[in-house]
Structure formats: structure tokens, C-alpha cells
């Protein structure tokens, strides 16, 4: 994994590729690499769908190795949704396969001059770029089936659905899972629209004949990985809660806290939340049976296995187990309490290539605008169908909550930097509001997710008995998360890291044994800071100012039941997040 594959889709006669050494980017991976390339090579004021933007696909530093949980793929570009820098990451097989093929990144550059659709095939033999207009406007599921017919079952696909081809701002980049289904998505910020603008419908990857990446010190690496896995298995969240119930286990708890945004962020409890909770979802999946029903990994090498497979009442595959954010977005946020409907909407989002958070929030705004009643499941399905069909209404909805709110004159639009908020109301969990407001990515719950504050000692150690302020905590979490995103590790490892110092050390030991380095916790935190500084720099040059680091006004004005709280963190405090 010591080279970068650059594919110029706008080359003179036909798209052309070049393989080059890492150069100045040596030592970077995942989000660290995507953000470094975007900062160095993309003009911040360029049009996100223009030839100057680039789409960077980068596995993490440990992807393609035997390290557990190392399968995240970072996708970076200038975002058509936010107008700023974007790193959106995904599970699935793609990161492992790209890394084993030897690439630290695949960079799509330029723009085809004609309205032509391409597929790119990358295997141990090399790279081919082929015109294939027969793939036009296929959904991700049909597309992957067609590619499997052509290239066999062992491929891994990165693709866009209709939304990406239409260059909609909620469009995702899909990655196939262990069953070669397009269920994993780099979903946020419209990265699929950028892939669509490059004219690339699919990248077909085949690592047949390629080996696992070899560590510099195999024995030390193996020992560290073993300890790391042991730590994950022993921890109650990563070893029990997530495998049993998936991320949707949060529904009941967040609802109880009064932090579950319901009916487009109008109040904090959904009356029927137990019908769509993780417990109910797991019970439904288990009773219906089927392969990988309630506990399943999204890529090989996952030991947490927080995912699952959702089958309908007759045992037919519908989609992967919908995540907490998806169940909230299409469920409680829209007043819908039917898991089968939510699973159907998740399937449609995956097929069209749409961000489930953005779409759920958008349907919520549309319901507030009167396009449908809250709780009307059929209407929600119809509205998402409009996006797949590419009707005028569908193109508005597929461009996200902010645009939909503008078009239909809605004031309560839950976005920051035009990106829809996830499933935690910032009035009830104010520190999350700080992260939503100040993240370089727009409203993003994962931007400050890696709860490794004490161990990383970012900005000083935090005494558990004397909690730091929410600004300091948000800053520390954002730094830690950026560092974890660079490793290609799943963020869910963070829970074990928070509680078990030896598990955190095992992760650092793995990196050191692999690269023959001697990283310390301070070095890891410095990497996180470096990434945030790069992203902040890009955004400032793209025109972002302090006013973009704010929550919408209604969060300060509208008390949020049941606790009747408003967002109380001052602008001055928000502006101090990047003081490091």
C-alpha cells in the first residue's frame, strides 16, 4: 500500500490512469490522506461537481492487514452539500481489497467531456477504464448483480445509484459487504454526486491472488492484535450490547433521556419507540431467522458484528439491519413506528444511493411542510420513490433537508453547514450540539465520537471526577475521532478504548509493529489535530466563517420537551473549540 492510483476522467482522448508513489503523503491513511489530498490539490472555491474537484478513496493505515476492525474506507472531496471539505467513511469489503491491491488511495480527477458512463476494473493485473452506458440509472442492487454476472462472485464493488448519477447532494458512494450486497455507504455530504460528476458508475475490485499486507514485526503485530481482539470481546458494549442488538440499542435509552428528535425535532420522546427499538428489532430478526439475522459483521475481520440482516415476514431478504440513525431518521423523526416500513426505506436508500440520515431528516421537513402527515408510512415511501425516479420533487428532496426547507418555506430545518443532524437533539445533549456546530463536516455525530479523551490526553488529561466543559470535551473528541478515522479502524472500538487502557495500547502497538514505528498517545493526538487543522484551513479558504459554526436559530428559541431546554452554549464558547 505504497502507491496512489490517479484516474483522470477528463484526459484528452479518453480517461487515463497513472500510478505514482506516495511522495509527500507517505505515512498517511484514511481521513488523514483524503483530507491532505483535498487540501493540497483541490481549489477551495471550485464547484464541487466541476473538473477541479477530486474524489479520493482511501483505506486506513491498517486496512488490508489481519488487524481486526480495520475495514473502514474513507471517501473525501469538496462536498456538494456543505461546500466544505468532506470525509465520509464506510464499512464493507472495499478498504481491505484496495489495500491488498497495493493502493493507499484511488483518486478520481477531471471530468468527462461527453455524457458517458464508465466502470473501472482494478485487479492484480492492473487497471482498465471502460465505457458502459448500459449501466445508466441502475439502482445499486441491479448494478452489482450485473457486475457479478460479468466479473464473478468474488468481486467487491464501489458504486453509485440513480441519486449519484443525478448528482444529488444526498447521494452516497456504496460499498459491497461480505455477501457482495451494496449495503455499506459513505453516505454523508453528497460524495456520490461527485462520483457521478466524474462519470464513474462503478469501480470493480478483485484482489484474487493478492496477499494480506505483511507487518514489519509479525510477532509483535500478532500479539497486539490478539490483545486488541480480547479487549473488544471482553467489553460489555463491544462484546455484548452491539452484537446482540446493534446500534439501534440506543433507541430506548436516548428516548428515555428525552433526546430523541421526534416529528422533525419538535419534541424529545417518541411515544411508540419500543416498537422500533433495538431490542424489538433483534427479536423480530431472530424470530424470522435467516442467515446473519441479528448478529453479523459488515466486513471480514470484524469481531464486534454489530450488524444483521433484515428479512421480511416471509423470509425474503430486504436489507441489512437498519442502523440506529436510520431507524430514527425514517422512524421516530417522521412518526413512523413500523420496522418493516423502515427496512423498506433503508433498502430504497441503499438502492438509489441515498444518505439515510439526510433522507429521513428531509422527509421530516417535507412532512412539516405539509407534503405528508407525520406517521404516514405510505407517503414516506412515495416521497423517497420520487427521488429514485428523478421527478422534480424527487430532485429537490434528494438534494437534502436544507434545500427542501428553503423550497417549501420551513423554518425548523435541522442542519449545520447544510448537512442534516443525526439522532440526538443538541438541546438535550448540549455537548453533541457543540460538535454539530463546529465540526468541519457539518452536523455529524461521528465527528466527535472516539471517546478516548483520558487516554489521549488531548489538551490535558480529564479527571473523571471533575468533568471538563462541553467545549473542551467536544474538542478532544473531535481530535481523537480524526485520528481513529486515519487508521481505518471502526469507531466502535472507541468504547473498549475508553474503559480499557490496555486495549488502546494494543491498537497503538499494532500500528507500531506494522510500520516499525514508535508512536505514542501524544503522536496519535497530534495526528488528529493535524487533520482538523487541514480541514479547517480548507473550509476557511472555501469561505466558511464563524457564522457557519452555529446551530439553526430554533434550537436557541424553542424549548424542547420533555425537559423544555434550549441550546445554551454561547457563540464565544463555540468559537473557542479550535483553540489548540
Amino acid at each position, binding site marked *: 500500500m505504497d502507491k496512489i492510483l490517479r484516474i483522470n476522467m477528463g484526459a484528452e482522448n479518453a480517461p487515463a490512469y497513472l500510478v505514482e508513489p506516495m511522495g509527500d503523503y507517505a505515512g498517511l491513511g484514511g481521513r488523514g490522506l483524503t483530507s491532505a489530498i483535498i487540501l493540497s490539490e483541490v481549489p477551495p472555491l471550485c464547484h464541487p461537481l466541476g473538473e477541479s474537484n477530486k474524489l479520493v478513496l482511501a483505506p486506513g493505515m491498517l486496512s488490508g492487514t489481519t488487524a481486526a476492525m480495520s475495514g473502514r474506507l474513507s471517501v473525501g472531496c469538496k462536498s456538494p452539500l456543505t461546500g466544505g471539505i468532506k470525509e465520509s467513511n464506510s464499512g464493507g469489503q472495499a478498504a481491505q481489497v484496495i489495500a491488498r491491491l497495493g493502493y493507499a488511495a484511488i483518486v478520481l480527477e477531471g471530468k468527462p467531456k461527453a455524457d458517458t458512463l464508465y466502470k473501472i476494473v482494478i485487479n492484480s493485473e492492473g487497471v482498465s477504464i471502460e465505457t458502459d452506458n448500459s449501466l445508466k440509472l441502475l439502482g445499486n442492487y441491479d448494478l452489482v448483480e450485473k457486475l457479478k454476472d460479468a466479473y464473478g462472485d468474488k468481486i467487491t464493488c464501489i458504486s453509485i445509484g440513480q441519486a449519484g448519477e443525478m448528482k444529488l447532494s444526498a447521494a452516497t458512494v456504496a460499498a459491497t459487504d461480505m455477501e457482495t450486497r451494496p449495503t455499506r455507504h459513505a453516505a454523508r455530504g453528497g460524495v456520490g454526486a461527485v462520483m457521478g460528476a466524474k462519470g464513474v458508475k462503478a469501480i470493480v475490485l478483485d484482489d484474487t491472488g493478492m496477499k494480506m499486507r505483511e507487518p514489519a514485526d509479525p510477532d509483535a503485530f500478532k500479539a497486539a492484535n490478539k490483545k486488541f481482539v480480547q479487549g473488544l470481546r471482553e467489553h460489555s*458494549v463491544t462484546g455484548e450490547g452491539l452484537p*446482540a442488538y446493534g446500534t439501534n440499542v440506543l433507541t430506548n435509552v436516548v428516548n*428515555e*433521556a428525552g433526546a430523541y428528535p421526534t416529528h422533525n425535532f419538535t419534541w424529545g420522546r417518541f411515544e411508540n419507540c419500543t416498537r422500533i427499538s*433495538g*431490542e424489538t428489532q433483534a*427479536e423480530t430478526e431472530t424470530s424470522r431467522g435467516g442467515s446473519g439475522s441479528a448478529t453479523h459483521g459488515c466486513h471480514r475481520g470484524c469481531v464486534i458484528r454489530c450488524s444483521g440482516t433484515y428479512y421480511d415476514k416471509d423470509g425474503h431478504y430486504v436489507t441489512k439491519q437498519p442502523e440506529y440513525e436510520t431507524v430514527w431518521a425514517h422512524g421516530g423523526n417522521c412518526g413512523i413506528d413500523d420496522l418493516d416500513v423502515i427496512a423498506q426505506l433503508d433498502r430504497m436508500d441503499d438502492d438509489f444511493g441515498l444518505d439515510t440520515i439526510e433522507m429521513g431528516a428531509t422527509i421530516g421537513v417535507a412532512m412539516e411542510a405539509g407534503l405528508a402527515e407525520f406517521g404516514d408510512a405510505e407517503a414516506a415511501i412515495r416521497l423517497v420513490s420520487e427521488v429514485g425516479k428523478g421527478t422534480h420533487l424527487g430532485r429537490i428532496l434528494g438534494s437534502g433537508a436544507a434545500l427542501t426547507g428553503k423550497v417549501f418555506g420551513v423554518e425548523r430545518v435541522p442542519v449545520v453547514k447544510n448537512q442534516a443532524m443525526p439522532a440526538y437533539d443538541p438541546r438535550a445533549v448540549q455537548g453533541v450540539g457543540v460538535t454539530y456546530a463546529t465540526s468541519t463536516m457539518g452536523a455529524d455525530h461521528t465527528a466527535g465520537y472516539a471517546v478516548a479523551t483520558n487516554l489521549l490526553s488531548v489538551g490535558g488529561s*480529564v479527571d473523571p471526577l471533575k468533568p471538563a466543559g462541553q467545549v473542551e*470535551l467536544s474538542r478532544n473528541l473531535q481530535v481523537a475521532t480524526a485520528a481513529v478515522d486515519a487508521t481505518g479502524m471502526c469507531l466502535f472500538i472507541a468504547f473498549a478504548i475508553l474503559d480499557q487502557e490496555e486495549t488502546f495500547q494494543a491498537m497503538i502497538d499494532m500500528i507500531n509493529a506494522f510500520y516499525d514505528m514508535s508512536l505514542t498517545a501524544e503522536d496519535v493526538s497530534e495526528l488528529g489535530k493535524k487533520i482538523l487543522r487541514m480541514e479547517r484551513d480548507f473550509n476557511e479558504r472555501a469561505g466558511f466563517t464563524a457564522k457557519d459554526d452555529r446551530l439553526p436559530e430554533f434550537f436557541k428559541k424553542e424549548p424542547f420537551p420533555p425537559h423544555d431546554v434550549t441550546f445554551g452554549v454561547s457563540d464565544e464558547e463555540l468559537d473557542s473549540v479550535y483553540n489548540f
Partner: protein
Amino acid sequence: MLDICLTVDPARLSVFQEILAAGFHVPAPAGKSIRKVLTAHIGLDARYLETRVQTIFLNGRAVDDFDHTTIKTGDVLALSSAMPGLVGAVFRRQSPLAKMRGSAIPETKANGGQGSVEITLKLFNQVAQDIGPDFLMSGIRISAAYLRRFLVAHPELSFKGVRVDGEKLDVRELPEILNVEANARVRIHSD
């Protein structure tokens, strides 16, 4: 109050986690700490409470100090194991991230009161899985209307036996009967 005994397939016992999460009524001594109520009165093992019950909400507010937080009638007490996600970590007892909750939602403390009161207890996730079956077998008191809605929402549930006030009953008659009374004591048996 109706006394209802339902016999189900053991494999389907977990479907009743939905009822445990929605909450059921339990009597409790007023003015006692949450720890006292849960261990001395409800019978939770002290070590289990300390290690497994990582997240406690009282009336929707996260509780850090369950030795000095007391209960009063009408309180809603929810118990959960450690949760994933940043917000899951934020709501944990004694979380180093507790400050992220924001100062606007303070912890409830020292409600006081005397005698026996009634509270609503909610059990989530692994906690419901661990201790829920005992509650279900010994009987929980819930709203009859809620039980009716639950049964209507789960037409796939088949019961090996239904008894109301000791008398055998066809399950199809149950929704009608549940319209009459406000509350029901429900016991779930599995064999």
C-alpha cells in the same frame, strides 16, 4: 385489577422485552435511595447493580449518584447496561463525559417522602434480558390498554395457555376484556 397468566413458547419470551421497556408499575418505599429501592426492595444483587446497570434514568434524567437520589410516587426509573455511541457514554453513571449533557438538565436529588409509593420501572437491553424473565414470571402490573395495544400489534404471538382471574380463556377474547379494567397484573410463563 385483572390477573392474567399467559403461557408462551420460551423462544418467544424476548418479545416481551417491549413491555419491560415501556415500563411497569412497582410499589417502593418512598424517600429511600435508588440503590436501596433496587437492592433491598426489588431484590437486585448489589454487585449486579454496580457492574451491569451502567445507566440509570430517573424521570428522564441521568443519575450519577444513586446513593443520594431518592424516589417519590409517580417517578419513572429506567435501567440500562452500558450503551454504545458518544451519547451512550455521556449518559453512563459517573461518566467523564457527563458535562456534555449540558447544565440545563440537572440530576434529580433528594425527593423525600414517606410510606409506600408506586413507581414505573423500565428495563432496557441486557438488563431486561438478565432480570426481565423473573419479573415476567412473578408478574408485572401494567396498563390494560397498553397490553391490549401490544397484543394487537403482535398478531403473530401464539399462546399455549391464557388464564384470566384463574379461568381459561380464548386469546381472541382478551382484547375485549382489557377494555374493561384500567390495570392488569400479567404473568408470563414459558415451558
